[in-house]
Structures are given as structure tokens and as C-alpha cells.
């Protein structure tokens, strides 16, 4: 227990978390600190590019594990299933309408890549290895949750979600997925030789770029929370901190079942625990415009993301350590 506390405090005092907190505090103090949209997008492209490539290069170095395909399958199942759990929980706990609850649920089935990156960086700091292909698992978990959410609406809602032609293609080929998967494949193809070539760009400065990006996430999350305080009723807040451990537990189960390495289990838990803030909100605006974006963005960015970043990840790591003795 006291070890876990030390770990949690250590994690809380890492530059990555502290820059997130700085952004959050600056937003709440109504400072005009801000990162231009183009720069924020550039940082996000960099992270996807780097994390995808490194994952692929690691697969090239360690060979494919027999569990690669099973892990991808587990990711897809989790992404399809978690929105249903989330929806049930929301309908029980909160007074959200079917539409809003389904939209929120979709976010929790999908994943947040920066939470994944933060967990990888904690693992790296602790010297714990993990499967390179977890990046690919992250990629396949982005989209199924959206289909789940739309199915929920079709099944339980009055308002008809518009599953128009084009939307599915848009979801599957959204920029983050393409860049992540593409970089993963290129890293895999070019292997160590490729990694050597671009390591000074994607390895050494990675943590620093991540700090700047988390500063931006803090600013955006803080501003969102400040503006949307009113929608954040206690029941919703509670959902935002309860759903991650539930997802993580499912991730833990699958991870142990598949025999992933301790690091891999932590990452799968983190993926399951995290909530989307890029792909799913965009899909929801198109397909489910009646759902209130302040609710799902505030929950995902303003509650669950900070929760995972600060408490969730060290908790998942501690659990895996306790169970596997890693």
C-alpha cells in the first residue's frame, strides 16, 4: 500500500502530469495562455507518428507473438461491449436521455491515444517491457464503439441516428487511425534500421513533446470544464471515475487470459479504461447531432482523462504488479 502511494506520488510529480496540471490551472485562472490549433494538431500528429512507428519497430525486433491476433480480437470485443455496459450504468445512475447516454457510452468503448502514451511512458520509467503491437490493439479499438453506440440508439432510442453512407468509411479512415496504423506498418517493415534513422526525432525528444501536448490538453480540458460545470452533475462525475476501473477490470481479465506480459496487461487495462476525445466526438456530431457535446466532451476530457492520468494508470500498474509480481 505505501509502495503504491509512493508510486502514485512519484507519478503525480512527473513533468508530464505537472504540465497537465499547469494547463488545467491556467485555464481555471482564466489566463490567456493557449497553444495555436495548428501547433496542437502538429504535436498530436507527432505523437501518433512516433508511437505507431516505435510499436511497429518493436514488433519487427521481437517477432509476432502468437497472441497478436487474439489481442486484436480482444480489443474489438472490448470496444463493442463496453458501450453497452456504460449505457446501462448511465441509465441506472444518471438521468441522461437515451441519446445522451448512448453518445457518452460510445466514448468509453473507444480509446484515448494520449492516455495510452502516458501509460507507456510510466512503464518505460519503471523499466517494464510491453508488446509493441499494443499500438495496433489501440487502433482497432477506436471504431467499434461507435457502431455500438449507434446500435444502442436504434434499439432503445426514438431519435434515429443517421447511419448514412460514408460515415463508416469516415470512421475507419479517420486521420488518427490511418497515421497510427500506417506508422506502425512502416515501423514494422523498416524495423531497427528504420528506427535508427529516425530515432533522434521520435525517441529522444518524445517526453518533452508529450509535456507540451499535455499542457495543451490541460488547457482544453480546464476550459471545457469551466464552461460546462453546469452539466456535470454528481452522478455524471461519479460515472466518469467509476467507468475507468470497470473498463480496466475487463482489460485485466482479457489481458491475463491472453497471457500478455505485465506491461501489456497494464496497457490493455489503460485502453479499456480510457475514453475517446478525437474520433468519437466527431462521429457523434455527424450521426447523433441531438446529443449534447458538452456532456460527452466534459466527461471524457475533463473527468476521465485526468483521472486516468493521475490515479488510474498508477492504480492499474499496482494491481498488475500485485497479481504478477512484476
Amino acid at each position, binding site marked *: 500500500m505505501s509502495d503504491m502511494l509512493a508510486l502514485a506520488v512519484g507519478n503525480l510529480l512527473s513533468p508530464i502530469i505537472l504540465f497537465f496540471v499547469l494547463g488545467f490551472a491556467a485555464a481555471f485562472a482564466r489566463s490567456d495562455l493557449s*497553444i495555436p*490549433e495548428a501547433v496542437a494538431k502538429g504535436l498530436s500528429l507527432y505523437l501518433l507518428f512516433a508511437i505507431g512507428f516505435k510499436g511497429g519497430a518493436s514488433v519487427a525486433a521481437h517477432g509476432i507473438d502468437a497472441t497478436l491476433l487474439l489481442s486484436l480480437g480482444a480489443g474489438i470485443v472490448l470496444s463493442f461491449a463496453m458501450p453497452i455496459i456504460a449505457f446501462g450504468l448511465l441509465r441506472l445512475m444518471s438521468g441522461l436521455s437515451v441519446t445522451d447516454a448512448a453518445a457518452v457510452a460510445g466514448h468509453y468503448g473507444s480509446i484515448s491515444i494520449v492516455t495510452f502514451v502516458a501509460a507507456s511512458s510510466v512503464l518505460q520509467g519503471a523499466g517494464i517491457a510491453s508488446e509493441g503491437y499494443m499500438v495496433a490493439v489501440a487502433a482497432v479499438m477506436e471504431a467499434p464503439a461507435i457502431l455500438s453506440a449507434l446500435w444502442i440508439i436504434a434499439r432503445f432510442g426514438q431519435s434515429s441516428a443517421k447511419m448514412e453512407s460514408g460515415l463508416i468509411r469516415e470512421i475507419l479512415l479517420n486521420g488518427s487511425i490511418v497515421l497510427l496504423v500506417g506508422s506502425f506498418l512502416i515501423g514494422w517493415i523498416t524495423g531497427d534500421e528504420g528506427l535508427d534513422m529516425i530515432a533522434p526525432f521520435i525517441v529522444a525528444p518524445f517526453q518533452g513533446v508529450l509535456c507540451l501536448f499535455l499542457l495543451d490538453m490541460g488547457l482544453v480540458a480546464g476550459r471545457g470544464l469551466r464552461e460546462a460545470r453546469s452539466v456535470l452533475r454528481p452522478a455524471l462525475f461519479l460515472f466518469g471515475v467509476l467507468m475507468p476501473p470497470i473498463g480496466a477490470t475487463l482489460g485485466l481479465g482479457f489481458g491475463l487470459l491472453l497471457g500478455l506480459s505485465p506491461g501489456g496487461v497494464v496497457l490493455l487495462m489503460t485502453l479499456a479504461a480510457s475514453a475517446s476525445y478525437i474520433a468519437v466526438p466527431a462521429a457523434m456530431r455527424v450521426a447523433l447531432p441531438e446529443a449534447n*457535446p*458538452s456532456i460527452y466532451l466534459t466527461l471524457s476530457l475533463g473527468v476521465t482523462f485526468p483521472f486516468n492520468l493521475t490515479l488510474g494508470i498508477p492504480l492499474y500498474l499496482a494491481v498488475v504488479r500485485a497479481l504478477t509480481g512484476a
Partner: protein
Amino acid sequence: MQTHQAKRVEITIEAVMENRLTKALLDAGVTGFTILPVLGGSGRSGHWSREGQVTRAGGMVSVICIIRPDRLDSLLEAAFSVVDRHIGVVSVVDCEVLRAERF
């Protein structure tokens, strides 16, 4: 100089709907349009700003379309079919243009 009557339609709409809107406009026989970026705004659904955004859900764009007056109605119907369920503002202004053959 010789100018001609036309209508200037301005549609402010969520960026995620941009392609669907412009497709509907072109299908409705519009000959051209111009897309302006939008920094932020405020309305019934609250305040928003592009600063630091990485999500693609948040922003809006403004689509400007200049057309011959007799085409206004089909344009508005096309626009309305897209903005109907979405947030967004449509406004029309009388204007005069050079080189009317373009519109």
C-alpha cells in the same frame, strides 16, 4: 461598371458537416463556393474556440456562396436539408457582382 443582381448566402456550420454541405450545394446546381475558417463563437449551445483543439468535433466553418437570385430557393433547400438537425446559421444578403456569367 456593369454589375448584376445576385444573392450572397452565408452558412456557418460545424466543420464535420462541411463536406456533406458542399456536396449538397453542388448537387443543387451551385457553381462555386468559398470556405472561411471560423475562430470561435457563441450560441444557444454555448461558447467555443478553436484554440489548442485537437478534436475534430469542435470547430465550425463559414461557407459563402454567391448565386443568381432564381437559384436561391433550391440552394436554401439543399442547405436546410443538411443543417436541419445540426447547429448552424444561414443568412442571405442581396448583392451585386461583376462578371455575372460565372454564377
